[in-house]
């Protein structure tokens, strides 16, 4: 499966309208139905109250001010005051409930995105730039956040007040109301036509923001190369290019977003003018009163005021939708590493078996070609061969980080795809070529993801380390288990990282332990300690070692030679040496 978001995006972005995307977004609101109903009732009451008051004011002016009856004014003022108090309560409810809904929606949305990230396979991360992914998950959800936490309540409230005011206008005087609302019809068409363009501009801008942050991420993480090769200008030039691109796209998005406000303002003013001119005409022919004209003008404000707010909010909404599109591109991806039902069709009895396995990357480059071999339980296997020959890919297939493009991998009597990931990772320990440490302490990193020792006290943990023979390794860290790991990890050397990954894997007591050049940067004396530790693992543990140093592989029960997409048994160490020295290179 192709996980390249750049390609996924190109295909789907144009097809989806705001509404379809919105519908999916709203599905995150499912659990909120009850609260939403209450909130909507509050909004309804609140809007009705705020819409009723201009009518009452209009009546008061017509009936009492013009006829100079102050008592009537006081009665109306009393009624109005009560209504305002009631509105105070409902408005509080409305904001609180709607805002809560927004916050919880954002909460489940973020969780969904993160959950999806956890679900997707390694291939997804290899095919996308880390900086762009980070920008999608952080920056784009933040755009949604801004919409939810700042605009959503206003958005809903505005729509209600506006609709209510519109109904009142038509109800009070149909011809005048219709005339007053005519500019809004124009606005509706205008908005409908222009929104896709605005969203496109914003999507382009978010993309350039993503590119820029990917650029910064790459340059800053690799700053030492930039210094050592005297290419500070490279950083500047690359950044300047991204910055300039971002500037152009931001100007485009900014102009697009700002197009609504003046147009909406103009419509609002035209609406007022229509009411004034037409209203006075109606009064002159006796179809309307001055009091109602004043009331009508308030409703016009009640209608176009929120509409003008909607103009600003609509732009926010378009930004949020563009962000949402980029996020939903991730959400629509599915892991192709599903757990399948274990078929009864004659799985081999060996511990690990490759059967007619091919593997190609999405770009079409074939790395492994038609390989079949099997490994027995409790033995040690070494995989050697020139760089780029396919050793790491073979290891990835053994641990099912990838699935073969053709053929099958069987593990412990079953298709490896029939294990769920918990079971599989419990049975297979894999020490990656480039280990990653999380912010925290060495202890946290070693016990990371290891449920067995989760509730152990410090003394118990120390005993576990002593039993596994790991204490000597801890001496390689400044403050032992409590050595701090900060993000960026420049204070921990590559060799130390490899030691952590090693201890991490050994403590999990896997059935199959794969070391992919896992000790390459560790000195040979420490490495001997590692070998002793590996030897002490239970006799049933199968070990797969990928290495260049001969002393790491000479104790292997069997040696495989991997080159040009072929995995072959090398037989003796001497034969492996010959192959290494004389076989045609893959790279």
């Amino acid at each position, binding site marked *: 499966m192709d996980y390249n978001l750049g390609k996924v995006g190109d295909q789907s972005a144009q097809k989806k309208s705001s509404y379809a995307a919105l519908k999916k977004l709203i599905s995150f609101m499912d659990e909120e139905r009850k609260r939403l109903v209450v909130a909507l009732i509050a909004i309804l009451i609140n809007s009705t109250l705020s819409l009723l008051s201009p009518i009452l004011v209009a009546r008061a002016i017509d009936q009492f001010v013009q006829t100079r009856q102050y008592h009537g004014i006081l009665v109306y003022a009393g009624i109005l005051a009560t209504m305002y108090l009631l509105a105070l309560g409902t408005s509080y409810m409305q904001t609180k409930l709607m805002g809560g809904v927004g916050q919880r929606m954002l909460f489940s949305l973020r969780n969904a995105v993160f959950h999806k990230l956890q679900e997707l396979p390694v291939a997804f991360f290899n095919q996308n730039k880390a900086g762009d992914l980070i920008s999608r998950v952080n920056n784009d959800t933040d755009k949604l956040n801004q919409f939810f936490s700042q605009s959503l309540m206003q958005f809903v409230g505005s729509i209600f007040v506006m609709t209510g005011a519109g109904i009142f206008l038509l109800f009070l005087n149909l011809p005048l109301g219709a005339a007053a609302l005519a500019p809004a019809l124009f606005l509706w068409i205008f908005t409908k036509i222009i929104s896709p363009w605005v969203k496109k501009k914003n999507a382009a801008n978010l993309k350039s*923001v993503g590119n820029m942050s990917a650029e910064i991420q790459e340059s800053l993480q690799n700053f030492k190369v930039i210094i050592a090769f005297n290419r500070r200008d490279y950083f500047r030039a690359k950044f300047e290019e991204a910055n300039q691109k971002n500037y152009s796209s931001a100007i485009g998005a900014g102009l697009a977003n700002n197009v609504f*406000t003046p147009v909406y303002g103009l419509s609002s003013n035209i609406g007022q003018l229509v009411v004034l001119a037409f209203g006075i005409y109606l009064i002159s022919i006796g179809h309307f009163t001055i009091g109602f004209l004043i009331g009508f003008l308030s409703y016009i404000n009640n209608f176009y005021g929120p509409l003008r707010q909607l103009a600003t909010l609509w732009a926010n909404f378009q930004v949020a939708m563009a962000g949402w599109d980029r996020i939903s591109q991730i959400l629509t991806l599915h892991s192709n590493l599903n757990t399948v039902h274990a078929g009864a069709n004659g799985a081999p009895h060996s511990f690990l078996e490759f059967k007619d396995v091919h593997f190609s990357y999405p770009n079409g480059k074939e790395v492994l070609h038609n390989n079949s071999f099997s490994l027995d339980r409790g033995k040690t296997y070494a995989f050697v061969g020139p760089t780029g020959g396919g050793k790491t890919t073979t290891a990835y297939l053994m641990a099912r980080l990838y699935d073969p493009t053709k053929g099958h991998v069987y593990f412990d009597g079953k298709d490896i795809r029939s294990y769920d990931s918990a079971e599989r990772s419990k049975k297979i320990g894999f020490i990656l070529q480039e280990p990653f440490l999380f912010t925290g302490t060495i202890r946290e990193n070693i016990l990371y993801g290891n449920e067995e020792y989760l509730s152990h006290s410090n003394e118990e943990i120390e005993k576990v380390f002593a039993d596994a023979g790991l204490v000597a390794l801890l001496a390689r860290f400044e403050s032992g288990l409590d050595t701090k790991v900060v993000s960026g990890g420049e204070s921990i050397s590559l060799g130390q990282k490899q030691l952590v990954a090693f201890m991490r894997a050994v403590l999990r007591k896997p059935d199959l332990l794969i070391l992919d050049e896992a000790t390459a940067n560790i000195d040979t004396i420490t490495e001997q300690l590692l070998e002793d530790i590996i030897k002490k693992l239970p006799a049933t543990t199968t070990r797969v070692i990928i290495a260049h140093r001969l002393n790491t592989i000479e104790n292997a029960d069997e040696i495989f030679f991997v080159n040009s997409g072929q995995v072959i048994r090398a037989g003796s160490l001497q034969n492996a040496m010959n192959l290494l020295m004389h076989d045609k290179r893959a790279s």
Partner: protein
Amino acid sequence: MAEPKPKGSAIKSQKPNMMKVLSPYRGMIVWLIVLALLGNGINLLLPKLISHGIDSYMQGHFDMQKVILQFSLAALGIFIFTFLQSVVQTYASEKVARDLRTQLSEKISKQSFAYIQKANPSKLLTNLTSDIDSIKLFVSMAIVSIASSLCIIIGASALLLSINWKLGIAVITIIPIIGGTFFIVLKKVRALFMKGREVIDRLNKVINESILGAATIRVLHSEKPESEKFREANAQAKDIGISILKLFSLLIPIITFTASMAGLTILMLGGHFVITGSMTIGEMAAFSSYLMLLIFPILVIGFMSNVIAQASASYSRINEVLQAPELKDPGTITEILRGDIELKNITVTYGEKPALKNISFKVDAGSRTAVIGPTAAGKTQLLYLLTGLIKPNEGEILLDGKNIEMYDKESFHQQTGFVFQDSIIFNLSVRENIAFNEKVTDDLMQKAIDTAEITDFVNSLPEKLETIVSERGSSLSGGQKQRIMLARALAIDPRILLLDDFTARVDNRTEQKILQNLKENYPGLTLISVTQKIASVENYDQIVLIMEGELIAKGRHEELMANCPEYIQIYESQRSTSL
């Protein structure tokens, strides 16, 4: 994890003035404010036009055409001015953002490696993105909003007072009430915002690590604990969001209520004045309209005060980077290096413990030196010193007898090649990755490619040298990345070559070939190689053994075998290697 507080007290004591950022754009800002004031000024006229219309109708001399003309002109004026304002506002804010980014990146590009590590790349990323965004928001929204809001508040108040000062005063009292409520609520909100920022930082960190460490997470099946970590931070973010919301859900109704009360006052008091004849109905209508006009700007100023607070917090973070002392480059020597290197009593302290203690040794020009020692002994630090990535806390490094500091950086880096231990491949074509330094000619590049034994590999790529290799080089094997990096270092035709554990990911045969190529193609090269394998360096001119930051022994292989037990132990551990 808490970021260490900035130490520069001189910077802190004097609060950076954000307005300084704007001074180069004075012209634009003035235009922005003028346009905003024009648009809003005309807006103020509209209720006046309406009330005139109503009154003149009541008095029987209504001129429909004149009213329509005046009103249309005003509406058109507003449209044009707000449109122009939005254009200027977009350009101004984006220009400010772009230029600030450029300034920042230039500053960062001149900094030392140690500074970048200390400032933390992910914090700098925030500076370049979110912090700049909040300043952009300030320029695009706050300036205009505040100028026009103030204009409307003052204008509307003046007009209210001019129509009827008694009723005017009664209505204007809402301004301090609303203002006061805002002040109290926003003060609380701001504290929550700060907290929210921290939580979001933490959230982002979990996301970043889960992306960068994706393979590790898959292998360890720790998706669940990761999700837990995320959920926890996310829940905190939600709680803070809801706390802020609670404050706002109190604020907005209070403001609406206050405004409604002012409306009521207009009805009661205004009605009274109309009845007693001291005010017209048209004027009363105008009062209602102005009240509507008045509320929104007060709200806007309240919200903008928040934008300003966030922007100035962001600016002080940015300013910290901009004001950081720049790397001084006093070096002037540009001579071609012979390659004599001498370390004199070097001590480097990293954190609390010294990483290197009192190290001294000499490397002759054109010779080959190996540095060996256990994991975390300080070997990489030693190479960092020789490239000038870090500086010694004590002692000095001499190149051809002169302090390394005295060399012109450009010329120095041009003559020193460094192959890092961790694979760093840029998201560029293979050619650009190898000819990373600009001065590389095609011949030099070809020689480097041949020496690094990647000719066959490059030819096997779909677009040869022009093939783009990805960020984390996922399509390349560890050894291929390592050799591209070697080619990158050789392409500058260095006088000194520093290798950090280069052979770790390269198989023996290739390693032998590369070393042979090096000898043939780069005669006279001074080589310092950090390595684990003694076999490859037995015939080197010098071997330096470092343990826990201390120099244990130096000399040729035979000398060390004769008198250094630690060396013998390492040798024994690899004996089978030396077939």
